[in-house]
């Protein structure tokens, strides 16, 4: 009964979304307050209805109601409760429902907290949000309905894929969808601004929190996915440039450009059309990613169950949303006149450089991901584009971005003094040089690039600290005075410092992966592997039963210098129902390095294959991502967003007529 209620609620939500798409837009055009207010009510109502629908589906999963086709296909009574719940979005239909739930939530947030937005702008934003929501609700109801019944209801479900029962994997989609949906709000703002024909600092102030929220969601979502791959897949890889991974990276890259570009619009009233384009682009990439993952045109480990009719529908959504927005852009953007001029060497100049590099990186990843598809479609040869291509093209683009990351914040707006900025960075340069020299000494001359990467990370980290020290005039004023300044700094600047510092930490982790060591050995009880100064001795392999599997568990003793430090228990699990075997890796994480163990096949007679890795600084990759996201969150809590936009004084000199 609840399911039918949920189904009905979803249909009603579609109806409301359609109203939300049309009425406020008309109201804004005719300045009818009543019509514009409909946007607010519709958004709130839509959220309530979609929440009911989502609750209904969750209820079905939690109670293991196998008369619902979606539950029967993707759940099982023996699944632990946590995974029953996360199973709600672990399939195509449920994940789309989560999408629209978050979309409706964001729309409701704009409706509730947007009271200091100009009325027309808010109405238009809600209208565009409504359109996007309507599109997805229609997609769900037409092609991906989770509320279909299965008659007769089976005794139990089929969804017990052991690979999907994992905490990291359970939370990776919600964060990613938050990222994608957040970008739809920025998109709505961009389209609304184009309809209105005006982009100003107030608009930028409103867009930035949403762009930041989206970016934080994507950062955490991507990091979670990468971390999951690391501890699950048995050889410690964490990024494969797989098409679906790229699908989440693309909006992240363009989202990074967006949050930086919006700063310039806000502060200097320039780079408007470029920022609008970025806002459109970021959501477009989220949509393109959705298309790639769910339509079956690309093959990937991650791809959901594939259906060409779904692909066509999403393509239709793409055409309407992106085509429409870009057409609007082509017509309206030329009229958006910028204000402030700036010299090439300036804060704006650095941000423009960042934009350029991020945009190029986006195009690079897009090109690499789609090229095999293009060639295949035109009947050309079948080629592969894998990690070697991306490493060769993407990494060189990031190097100048990282160099500029330390310099940019030290440049003044409008016209910066590069020499002075570089002088302030002498500490950073020294730190980088020291790291490089020490690294070369310790590691030898191979791999040089990794050592340079570490130096680059040191450059950025020390640069962040130098910039902060500069702001509080550390050591140039009495410490108490510096402390007072530090407390007075806006949250957004701490957010920036944290986020950039997080980047440095992550880059260090990535660079250090070149120094990992691997040992694969066939061990009998009593034998050991020596790696990186550790001795890993196999004590025994015992059989361990689990709720839905039987596992071989190896008891590995970790010694260093003869002292037993720890015991690690890698497992090899055989799932009885699925007839599948997965390896449960044992990881001993430390700040300095991870010890990573995986167990292969074997038996008492022939011994067991054990694979051991020593991975220096690998946890820095995810720690860095977390610090980046934290920086974004800190920025979000800046008072300026909450206080709303101060009324603008009329500009002293209007921008010169064209």
């Amino acid at each position, binding site marked *: 009964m609840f399911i039918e209620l949920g189904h009905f609620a979803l249909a009603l939500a579609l109806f409301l979304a359609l109203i939300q798409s049309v009425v406020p837009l008309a109201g804004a055009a005719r300045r009818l307050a009543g019509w514009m207010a409909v946007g607010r009510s519709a958004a709130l109502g839509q959220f309530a209805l979609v929440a009911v629908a989502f609750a209904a589906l969750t209820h079905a999963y939690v109670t293991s109601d196998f008369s619902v086709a979606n539950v029967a296909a993707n759940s099982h009574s023996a699944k632990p409760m946590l995974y029953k719940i996360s199973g709600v979005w672990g399939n195509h239909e449920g994940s789309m429902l989560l999408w629209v739930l978050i979309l409706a939530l964001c729309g409701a947030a704009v409706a509730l907290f947007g009271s200091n937005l100009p009325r027309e702008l808010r109405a238009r934003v809600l209208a565009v949000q409504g359109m996007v929501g309507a599109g997805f609700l229609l997609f769900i109801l037409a092609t991906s309905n989770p509320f279909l019944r299965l008659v007769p209801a089976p005794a139990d479900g089929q969804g017990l894929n052991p690979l999907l029962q994992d905490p990291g994997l359970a939370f990776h989609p919600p964060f990613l969808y938050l990222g994608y949906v957040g970008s739809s709000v920025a998109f709505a703002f961009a389209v609304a601004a184009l309809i209105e024909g005006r982009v100003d600092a107030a608009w930028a102030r409103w867009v930035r929190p949403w762009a930041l929220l989206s970016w934080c969601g994507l950062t955490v979502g991507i990091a979670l996915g990468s971390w999951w791959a690391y501890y699950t897949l048995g050889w410690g890889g964490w990024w494969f440039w797989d098409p679906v991974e790229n699908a989440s990276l693309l909006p992240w890259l363009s989202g990074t450009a967006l949050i930086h570009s919006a700063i310039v619009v806000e502060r200097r009233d320039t780079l408007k059309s470029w920022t609008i384009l970025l806002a459109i682009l970021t959501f477009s990439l989220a949509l393109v990613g959705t298309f790639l993952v769910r339509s*079956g045109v690309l093959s990937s480990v991650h791809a959901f169950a594939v259906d060409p009719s779904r*692909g066509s529908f999403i*393509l239709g959504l793409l*055409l309407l949303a*992106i*085509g429409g927005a870009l057409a609007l852009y082509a017509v309206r*953007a030329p009229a958006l006149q910028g204000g402030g001029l700036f010299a090439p060497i300036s804060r704006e100049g650095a941000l423009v450089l960042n934009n350029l590099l991020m945009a190029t990186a986006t195009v690079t990843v897009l090109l690499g991901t789609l090229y095999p598809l293009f060639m295949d479609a035109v009947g050309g040869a079948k080629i592969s584009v894998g990690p070697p291509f991306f490493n060769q093209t993407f990494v060189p683009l990031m190097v100048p971005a990282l160099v500029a990351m330390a310099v940019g914040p030290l440049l003044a707006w409008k016209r910066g003094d590069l020499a002075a900025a570089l002088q302030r960075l002498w500490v950073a340069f020294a730190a980088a040089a020291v790291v490089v020299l020490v690294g070369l000494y310790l590691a030898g001359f191979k791999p040089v690039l990794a050592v340079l990467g570490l130096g680059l990370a040191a450059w950025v980290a020390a640069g962040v600290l130098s910039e902060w020290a500069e702001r509080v005039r550390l050591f140039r004023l009495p410490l108490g005075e510096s402390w007072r300044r530090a407390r007075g700094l806006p949250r957004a600047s701490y957010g920036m410092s944290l986020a950039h510092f997080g980047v440095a930490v992550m880059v260090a982790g990535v660079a250090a992966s070149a120094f990992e060591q691997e040992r694969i050995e066939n061990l009998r009880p009593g034998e050991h592997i020596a790696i990186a100064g550790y001795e890993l001795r196999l004590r025994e392999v015992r059989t361990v039963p689990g709720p839905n599997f039987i596992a071989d568990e190896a008891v590995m003793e970790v010694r260093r210098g003869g002292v037993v430090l720890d015991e690690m228990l890698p497992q090899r699990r055989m799932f009885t129902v699925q007839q599948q075997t997965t390896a449960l890796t044992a990881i001993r994480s430390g700040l300095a390095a991870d010890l990573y163990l995986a167990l292969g096949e074997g038996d008492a007679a022939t011994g067991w294959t054990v694979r051991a890795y020593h991975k220096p600084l690998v946890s820095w990759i995810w720690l860095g991502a977390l610090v980046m996201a934290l920086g974004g969150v800190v920025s979000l809590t800046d008072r300026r967003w909450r206080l709303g936009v101060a009324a603008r004084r009329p500009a002293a000199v209007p921008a010169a007529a064209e």
Partner: protein
Amino acid sequence: MRRLVYLLPLLLFAALAGYFAFALISGRDPRELPSALLDKPAPAFDLPGLGGERLSAATLRGEVFVLNFFASWCAPCRVEHPLLLRLARQEGVRLVGIAYKDRPEDSRRFLAELGDPYRAIGIDRDGRVAIDFGLYGVPETYVIDRQGHIRKRFVGPLSPGQVERELLPLLRGLARL
């Protein structure tokens, strides 16, 4: 001129969407790999035979034949087997089999149970000959002409549709050459 620049994103997007639409409509399977040896000489091979005498590419030269890689442990091979029997017995197709990574006794048992459509069978225990053909799964079926060139590859179990629309017409065409 300036206005044209603003039109660029839309144009690029239109091209992209066009490609996507084309990819969707064409229904190409992204996982399917076309043979790298199409219209090239089939790899030479010399394998022990299931029936006792060896199977070599040289002895097969001069006639059109269909090479089918199979295995007793391969479920889809069971599905296509009746079709192979029909091809051999009713259509007179010259079918040659290669047992891929199979123990001879298992292959014999498989053929005893399901029927033997093959003129000759080779045993490829380590799968090297299969790799020479660019095989990436079983079953796979190759059409080889009189000159010993590979004319077509079918990946996966043959379907009646493929047989009617592609295999038989090709064989008739090659027989006339």
